[in-house]
């Protein structure tokens, strides 16, 4: 089934086409239309998955445990769909908001290689192949961070690269150990071997290496330092791309690994995951509360909300996993939306600093409405997407008796709400500060609102049709908790 490889091949083809057609004018078309094509393919994959079950593709015709296999189950398909929606929004946003002297062909080249790496990570069923896709993503994102050629971007980029390379090193070390112990790197084969292995405890050395590696990529509690020190430096279009996608790939792999084959020694792992989740939520939320720069506030919020996703994984009931998946999908949309909104505030007012902006509610009510949707979705106000995601997680927490993490999650919601209201008060309600009166206010074109409108609509729709999304995330969770179907489909190409 060649369509399974399409989410990787389309960005690859688009990146090549940008090497050939290098004028900014073509990029303005190739970027959004290419993203649209990826979105359409993801939709097609999703509907194919709905009718015929898990899709697999043996690349090069090599049978499953020997060759690389691409697999699309519900988790992959949902991630692909939402991430390509974000690509559409960001590609439209970057056309309008990148400065005129920005090298647009280069930007879109690395935009699509980043997409290729991300889609590869979402679809692959092979651990080493996953490592390769992570490297593709890492290199593309490093180039994107430093693209503005400013000194602080280089500094942020080096911090980003250094810590993430450390993560890659640990990933590779864990991978080597895993291969030495089991003799395979196919995820389904690993799951099958480890399920019947009495000595699965020996896996702890590899799984802790993987946990730290993906913890760095996903920015969980003690390992998140690269994120706040690099995300505020690049252009806002690039930051919003990263905010929606990069850390979520780390979360995706954590969910994949810790449901598929690192399922031994559950007491230790789930407690560790829950402790890390709680600390991630609180530190992220607290740090966000102390800043007055929108990009920094939102960066710390990314960290805070990674905690919720890990919490779902730590509780490990079908509802909790479904909640984690729902939360990830919601967060990708809402977080990108919030960053795009902060970019629009900065464009109209000329600053990201909340002390220097104000009076936007009067000046631009449409932006206010469009900002409040992702902001309140992040805080978890009904009927937006975030409410249902948090509801599922908290219900799962109470049902399984994990009261401490549930309390922490609820209190962190308040912190999130506080930060969002802070941005709302400072940027929209407060009068324009007098010592910054003279700053030029740029009027936004209608086309500037489109990307944010897409994401805000998606967030509202995800709230209104929460039942439908819930069904699919539950499907995803059931596939993850009961990996027998996945294993049979990959290894024997049939349903049990």
């Amino acid at each position: 089934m060649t369509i399974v490889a399409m989410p990787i091949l389309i960005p690859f083809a688009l990146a090549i086409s940008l090497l050939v057609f290098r004028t900014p004018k073509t990029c303005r078309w190739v970027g959004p239309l290419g993203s649209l094509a990826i979105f359409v393919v993801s939709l097609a994959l999703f509907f194919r998955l709905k009718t015929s079950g898990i899709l697999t593709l043996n690349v090069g015709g090599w049978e499953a445990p020997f060759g690389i296999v691409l697999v699309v189950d519900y988790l992959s398909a949902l991630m692909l769909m939402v991430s390509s929606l974000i690509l559409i929004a960001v590609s439209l946003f970057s056309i309008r908001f990148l400065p005129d002297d920005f090298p647009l062909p280069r930007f879109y080249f690395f935009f699509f290689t980043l997409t290729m790496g991300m889609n590869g990570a979402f679809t692959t069923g092979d651990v080493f192949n996953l490592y390769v896709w992570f490297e593709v993503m890492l290199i593309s994102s490093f180039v994107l961070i430093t693209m503005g050629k400013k000194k602080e971007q280089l500094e942020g980029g080096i911090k980003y690269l250094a810590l993430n390379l450390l993560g890659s090193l640990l990933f590779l070390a864990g991978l080597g150990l895993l291969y030495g112990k089991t003799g395979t790197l196919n995820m389904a084969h690993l799951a099958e071997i480890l399920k019947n292995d009495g000595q699965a405890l020996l896996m702890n050395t590899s799984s802790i290496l993987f946990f730290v590696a993906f913890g760095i990529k996903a920015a969980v509690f003690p390992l998140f330092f690269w994120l706040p020190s690099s995300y505020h430096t690049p252009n806002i279009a690039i930051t919003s791309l990263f905010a929606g996608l990069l850390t979520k790939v780390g979360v995706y792999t954590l969910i994949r690994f810790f449901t598929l084959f690192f399922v031994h020694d559950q007491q230790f792992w789930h407690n560790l995951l829950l402790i890390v989740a709680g600390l991630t939520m609180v530190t992220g939320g607290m740090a966000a509360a102390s800043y007055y720069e929108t990009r920094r506030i939102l960066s710390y919020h990314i960290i805070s909300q990674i905690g919720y996703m890990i919490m779902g994984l730590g509780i490990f009931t079908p509802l909790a996993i479904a909640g984690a998946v729902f939360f990830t999908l919601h967060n990708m949309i809402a977080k990108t939306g919030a960053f795009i909104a902060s970019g629009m505030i900065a464009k109209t007012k000329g600053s990201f600093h909340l002390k220097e902006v104000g009076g936007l509610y009067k000046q631009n009510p449409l932006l206010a409405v469009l900002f409040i949707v992702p902001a309140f979705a992040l805080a978890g106000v009904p009927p937006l997407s975030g409410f249902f995601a948090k509801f599922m997680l908290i219900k799962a927490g109470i049902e399984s008796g994990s009261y401490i993490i549930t309390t922490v999650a609820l209190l962190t919601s308040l912190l999130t709400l506080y930060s969002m209201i802070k941005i709302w008060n400072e940027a929209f309600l407060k009068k324009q500060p007098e010592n910054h009166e003279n700053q030029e206010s740029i009027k936004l074109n209608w086309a500037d609102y489109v990307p944010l409108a897409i994401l805000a609509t998606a967030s509202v729709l995800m709230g209104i049709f929460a039942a439908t999304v819930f069904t699919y995330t539950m499907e995803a969770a059931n596939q993850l908790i009961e990996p027998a179907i996945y294993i049979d489909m990959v290894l024997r190409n049939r349903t049990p």
Partner: protein
Amino acid sequence: MNSVILQIASKYVRWLLVIFSVIILIRGHNYPGGGFIGGLLAGLSLAYKGFAFTPELLKKEIKIKPEGYMGIGLILIFISIWPGVFLKTAIMQGVWFTIPFPFTEGFKFGTPFLFDIGVFFTVIGVTLLFLFSLSYEKIWK
């Protein structure tokens, strides 16, 4: 660097390196070698002039830009993906055919070799790009 010996030698060593890199590329399917290492050698053969004279001269004289080499390579790689879908069962599957040649059994040519050639060109481009970027100091504002 300003060494007359190196400058004269570069003229001849370049072509030796090109031939050597092509041999390495071709034998790479069954023996050590292949597109990556061949590409490095071929990139080096171009870089030789940059070492002997100045990188600016190389940049001026070079006919295809590094991005051009990478473009050619990536396009070849992209082409090599597809025959497997249409002629065999899966994507990226190897498709081989024999080109008849007098006095021999004929040459075997296939999509894995095309893939290797693609890697070869991409690596040439990357090597040149590294060389050009490392020979200037970039000013970060």
